């Protein structure tokens, strides 16, 4: 078991006042709270910070923790043989480290939760984030999750256990959407286990941008495809399709491929944004061609800005 330096995690001195600890927690919560953070490891950091705060904000737990003395973060650690900490009061929920569980009993999800409104006796809901690619969002996917469980053994002692759970992610999920897995949260003191909620995060795609169920694609085209019109092959989530570029198109023209976005009711559309790419004048012959065009097709695209 690894030692956790809660002071280091919160970035406070060992003699920090309760106010300083609270301020540090507030600052870190704004930085790492999964609801507000864009940091990659926000969820893990927020759990760590929450655990540190849970200990340091509580004078009893803090005093008990301080008795252990100072050790390097991550050092192999076993609680002293006579360690016996009975704590009372609120419990902020599961997801504690082994270190915390060993020190503070950490019955976590096994105790009931008064909950908002005070009528809840079932176990905690568990929340986890699941990253999905756009292809997976389109086709659906199956994920195997490893869940940390705490169970009572035959002597009534809590024991951690890892449970594997296969979850089917339906086709047509969108960013930020949740999947509820009933009764797969933590065990309750009565009234059954809580639910497991999986928040889906759509990973960025090389070409496609996603807005709700609509998919946007920037499509590079040549000046002659734009000017003369042409049928070109365009990637969609379901494979390539033929798209007719209308004659006389300009950059930023938007074309809609109806119902080629993410599935749903109604399904999303794919929008194609044309981007005219100009060939380089990198030879004498090409330069001559551009000059010929300048002479034969004189135009002033900035006419509206002048005068």
């Amino acid at each position, binding site marked *: 078991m690894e030692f956790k330096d809660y002071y280091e995690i919160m970035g406070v001195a060992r003699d920090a006042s309760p106010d300083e600890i609270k301020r540090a927690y507030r600052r870190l919560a704004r930085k790492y709270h999964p*609801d507000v953070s864009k940091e990659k490891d926000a969820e893990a950091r927020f759990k760590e910070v929450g655990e540190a705060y849970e200990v340091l904000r509580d004078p009893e737990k803090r005093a008990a923790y301080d008795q252990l003395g100072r050790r390097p973060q991550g050092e192999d650690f076993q609680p002293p043989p006579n360690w016996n900490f009975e704590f009372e009061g609120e419990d902020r929920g599961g997801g504690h480290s082994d270190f915390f569980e060993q020190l503070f009993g950490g019955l976590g999800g096994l105790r009931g939760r008064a909950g908002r*409104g005070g009528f809840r006796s079932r176990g905690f809901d568990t929340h986890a984030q699941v990253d999905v690619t756009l292809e997976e969002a389109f086709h659906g996917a199956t994920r195997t999750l490893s869940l940390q469980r705490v169970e009572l053994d035959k002597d009534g002692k809590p024991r951690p256990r890892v449970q594997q759970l*296969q979850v089917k992610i339906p086709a047509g999920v969108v960013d930020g*959407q949740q*999947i509820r897995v009933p009764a797969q949260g933590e065990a309750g003191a009565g009234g059954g286990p809580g639910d497991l909620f999986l928040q889906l995060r759509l990973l960025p795609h090389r070409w496609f941008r996603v807005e709700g169920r609509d998919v946007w694609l920037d499509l590079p085209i040549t000046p002659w495809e734009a000017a003369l019109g042409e049928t070109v092959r365009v990637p969609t989530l379901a494979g390539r399709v033929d798209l007719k570029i209308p004659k006389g198109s300009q950059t930023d023209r938007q074309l809609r491929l109806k119902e080629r976005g993410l599935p749903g009711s109604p399904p999303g559309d794919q929008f194609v944004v044309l981007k005219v790419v100009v060939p380089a004048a990198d030879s004498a012959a090409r330069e001559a061609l551009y000059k010929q065009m300048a002479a034969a097709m004189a135009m002033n695209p900035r006419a509206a800005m002048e005068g």
Partner: protein
Amino acid sequence: MTEPIRVDLLDETVEFSLEDLCRICGVHERLVVDIVEEGVIEPRGAVGAWRFTGVAVTRVQRVLRLQEEFEVNLAGAALALELLEEIERLRRGGR
């Protein structure tokens, strides 16, 4: 390893009653009414026969987490939620 487990996709096609929503979110009805009055979620149907979509579950949970963990009132949490959603939309390149 067994067959994939049954899941509920919390999107706008599923509908929950007020009782369902309270049970899933672990909150009291009174709190849901407050959240509706704050304009965070919009029920369908008449008072007494409210229906909520799966998206409401996520918004209720998020607004309550913000409220609890940042010690702000419901109006403040609702504002934070809307600004966060706006940022997420913009970051995805939305328009």
